[in-house]
C-alpha cells in the first residue's frame, strides 16, 4: 500500500505549492514525451535498413559533423544548468547570460540540422525516397521542432528576466524550461547513438 503513497504536497487550506505542482506536471509531461519519441525511434529502427533505391545511412551520414553538433547540444545542457544555478542564487545578470548562451547553442545546433538536411536532399534523400528517409526526417525533424520550441522558451524567459517580470512571478520558469531543455538533450543522446553511430 505504501508503494503508491507520495509526499502530501497539499498545504493547509488547499494552498498548494504552485511551483511544486508545475514541476510535477512537467515531469509527467516528459514521461509522456518519452513514449512519443519512443514511437518515432521505433519507427526508425524498423525502417533503418529499408533504403530502396535511395542512399543508405552509411553512405550519407557525416559522422564527424554530427558529432560536433551533438557535442554543442550536450554542452548547452551545461550552460542551462549553470543558468538554473544562478537563477536559484537570484543572480539575474548571470542567469540571463547563461540562458542566452543556451539559446545560442540551441540555434547553432538547429543551423547544423538545417545544413545537414539540405545536404541530404542534395544527395538524393528526401522524405519520399525510402521508408528510411521518411523515418529519419520525421524523427530528427520532430526533435528539431522540440529544440526550436525550447529556444523560444529560453528567449522568452531571458527577456522576461530583462523586464523584471520573472522576479515578480517567483514561479519556477527557469526550472521548467531547464527540465524541458535537458530532456530534449537527453533525447538527442539516444538519437545520436541509435540513428547515427549504429549506422557507421
Amino acid at each position, binding site marked *: 500500500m505504501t508503494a503508491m503513497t507520495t509526499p502530501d*504536497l497539499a498545504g493547509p487550506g*488547499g494552498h498548494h505549492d504552485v511551483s511544486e505542482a508545475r514541476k*510535477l506536471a512537467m515531469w509527467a509531461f516528459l514521461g509522456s514525451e518519452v*513514449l512519443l519519441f519512443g514511437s518515432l525511434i521505433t519507427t526508425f529502427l524498423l525502417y533503418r535498413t529499408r533504403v*530502396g533505391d535511395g542512399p543508405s545511412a552509411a553512405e550519407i551520414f557525416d559522422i564527424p559533423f554530427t558529432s560536433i553538433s551533438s557535442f554543442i547540444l550536450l554542452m548547452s545542457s551545461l550552460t542551462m544548468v549553470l543558468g538554473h544555478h544562478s537563477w536559484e542564487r537570484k543572480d539575474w545578470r548571470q542567469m540571463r547570460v547563461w540562458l542566452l548562451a543556451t539559446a545560442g547553442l540551441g540555434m547553432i545546433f538547429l543551423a547544423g540540422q538545417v545544413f545537414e538536411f539540405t545536404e541530404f536532399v542534395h544527395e538524393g534523400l528526401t522524405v*519520399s525516397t525510402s521508408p528510411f528517409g*521518411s523515418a529519419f526526417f*520525421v524523427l530528427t525533424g520532430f526533435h528539431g521542432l522540440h529544440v526550436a520550441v525550447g529556444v523560444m522558451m529560453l528567449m*522568452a524567459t531571458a527577456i522576461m528576466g530583462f523586464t523584471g*517580470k520573472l522576479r515578480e512571478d517567483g514561479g519556477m520558469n527557469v526550472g521548467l524550461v531547464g527540465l524541458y531543455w535537458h530532456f530534449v538533450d537527453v533525447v538527442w543522446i539516444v538519437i545520436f547513438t541509435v540513428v547515427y553511430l549504429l549506422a557507421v
Partner: protein
Amino acid sequence: MATLTPQAPSPASTAAPGRGGIWEWITTTDHKKIGILYGFSSILFFVVGGVEALFIRLQLAVPNGEILSADAYNQMFTMHATTMVFLVVMPIASAFANYFLPLQLGARDVAFPRLNAFSYWLYLAGALFLTVSFFVGGGADGGWFGYAPLSTQVTEVVRMDYWSLGLQVLGVASIASSVNFITTVLTMRAPGMTLMRMPVFSWMVFIISFLLLFSLPMVTVGLIQVFLDRNIGTLFFDAANGGDPVLWQHLFWLFGHPEVYVLILPAMGIVSEVLPTFARKPLFGRSFVIFSGIAIGFMGFGVWAHHMFTSGLGPVAEAAFALTTMFIAVPTGVKIFNWLGTIWGGSLELNTPMLFSLGFIFLFVIGGLSGVTHSIVPADSQQHDSYYVVAHFHYVLFGGAIFGIFSGIYYWFPKVFGKLLNERIGKVNFWLMFIGMNLTFAPMHVLGLNGMPRRTYRYAEGLGLDVWNLVATIGSLVLALGIAVFLYNGWRTFRKGEVAGPDPWDARTLEWTTSSPPPEHNFDRIPVVHHEDDFWHQKYTTDEEGRAVAIPADLRPVVAEGPDEDIHLPSPSYHPALAGLGIFVMLLGLVYVPWGLIAVGVGGIGFLWGMFGWSLEPLVRGDH
C-alpha cells in the same frame, strides 16, 4: 512553459466580474463550469452519434438495405465510433472528473484551471473540426481505427485528413487534462486525504490519466505518419516502397487498448460510488477494487496485439498475447465480485442510479465473458471483425460505460443542478435502455457467429442473417426511445424538478457536504479528512455488531466556524478559448494546403496570442 502557468490568485469577491452570459462561460476557469460544458457537449454529440447508429441499424434492418449508399454507410460507422469514443464517453468522463475530482478531494479547483479550460476548448475545436467534415465533402470513411494503407490510399479526398488532424487535437486535449488531473491528485488533496482514503471514482480518474498520458503519444505519432503519408509523400505505410502497414496497427492498438480501459474505468469508479451509497454499506474490499483498477491499467498496456490476432504475428506472439489477455479477466473479475460483496447483506435502495449500476454489473459480466473468448486465438480468428465483436464491445461500452455514466448522471445531477431527476421517468428510461440494449446487441453475437463481417453496408438474403438483424434494429429503436425519455427527463427537471438538498442520497463522500450546487469556492473551509468515506463517518458510527448508528445532528463533530480567510480562486480568462479557436482555424488550413496556409497563419497568430496572453496574465494580476 506557457501551458504550465499557475492559477491566478484573486480574491473570491472579484472572481466573477459581472460580465455574465455567454462571455462568462467562454472565460470561465471554474472546474465546475468547465465540467458542465464538457457534459453538455458530450450529451450533444451523444445524440449525434446515436443518430448515426440509427442510420446504420435502419440500413441493416433488411437484406440489401437501400436507405444509405455504401459511401454514406462507411461515413456513418466511422463517425459513429469516432464520435462515441472521442466525443462522448471520454469527455463525459472528463465532465465528471472535472466537476467531482476537486470536490471529492476537498480542493477548491484543479491544479491548473486555465490549462483545464484550454483542454475543453481544444476538445471542442477537435470535435467541431471532425464534425465539420460532413459538410465539406463527407465525414471520415476509413473506420475509427483508420487502418493504413486504406486511410492513406486516396489523398484526393480530404476526409481522412480531417480525421487524422482532429484526433490529434483531441489527443493533445486529453494529455493536457491528464497532466492536470495527475497533478491535482498529487498536490491538491485536503489535509488527511491520503491516497488510500481517496474516493474510488477519483482513483479511477487518476489511473486513466496515466493511461492517457502514456498511450496517446503513440497514436499521435501514428496519426502524424498517416497525415504525412497522405500529404507530403512519406512512405511509412506504403508497402510497395518498403513501408509496413502493420506498424500502424501496433501504434494504433498500443493506444487503442489502454483507451478501452480509459472508457470503462470511470464508469467502474461511478459504480463503486453508487453501490455503497444505496446499499448502505461501504465498498467491499476497497483496496482490492483500487488495486485491481491499477492492475487493469498496467495490464491494459500489455494486450494490444490481441486486436491483431489475424494480422500474422506468428504463433509465439499470439500465444503470449492470448495469455496476457486472459489474465486481464482476473482483476476485472475481482471488481465484479467485490461489487457483489458490496450489495450482499446491504439494504438496497433500488432507485434509478442504483438500477443503472446494477444493470452495469449484469451487462458487463456478459461483455467480460465474451471478451475472454477473444483471447482464445483460434476462436478469435472466426470472431474477429465479425458482428460478434460488435456485440462484445457494445456490452462493455454501452452496457458498461454508458450505463455507468447514466448512473453517474442520475446520482450527481442533484449536486450539479440542485434538482433531482424524476424517479418515475428515470425508471422508464432505465428499462427501455436495458431492454433495448439487449435486443440490439445480443442478436449480434449470433450474427457474428453466422458469419456476418463488420462494416458491411449490406448483406445478401439466405445467409441466416435476416431475422436477427431485424431484431437488432427494433432493439435500437427501443434504445433510442429510452434515450429520448432521458432527454425529456432532463429538460423537465430543469423546469420543475424537485429541489435537492446538499445530501439527497445520504451519501458518503465529500462532494455531498457542500450545497447543491456548490458555491464557487466549493468549501467554506477546506475539510480535514480522518477516514475513507469521511462524510459518512461524520454522520454515523458503528455499534459492536458493526451496524451503522446515526450520530444525532447536535453531536456531530463541530467544524470550525466561518470560512477560510483568504480564498483564492482562478480569475476568468479568454485566452484558453482564443488559443483553442486558433487551433481550429489552423487545422482547417492544414487540410487545404497550399491556400489553407493563410488560415494556418491566421490561426497560428490567434493561438500564439492566446498562449502569450495566458502566460503573462498572472504576472500582471497576481501581485497587485
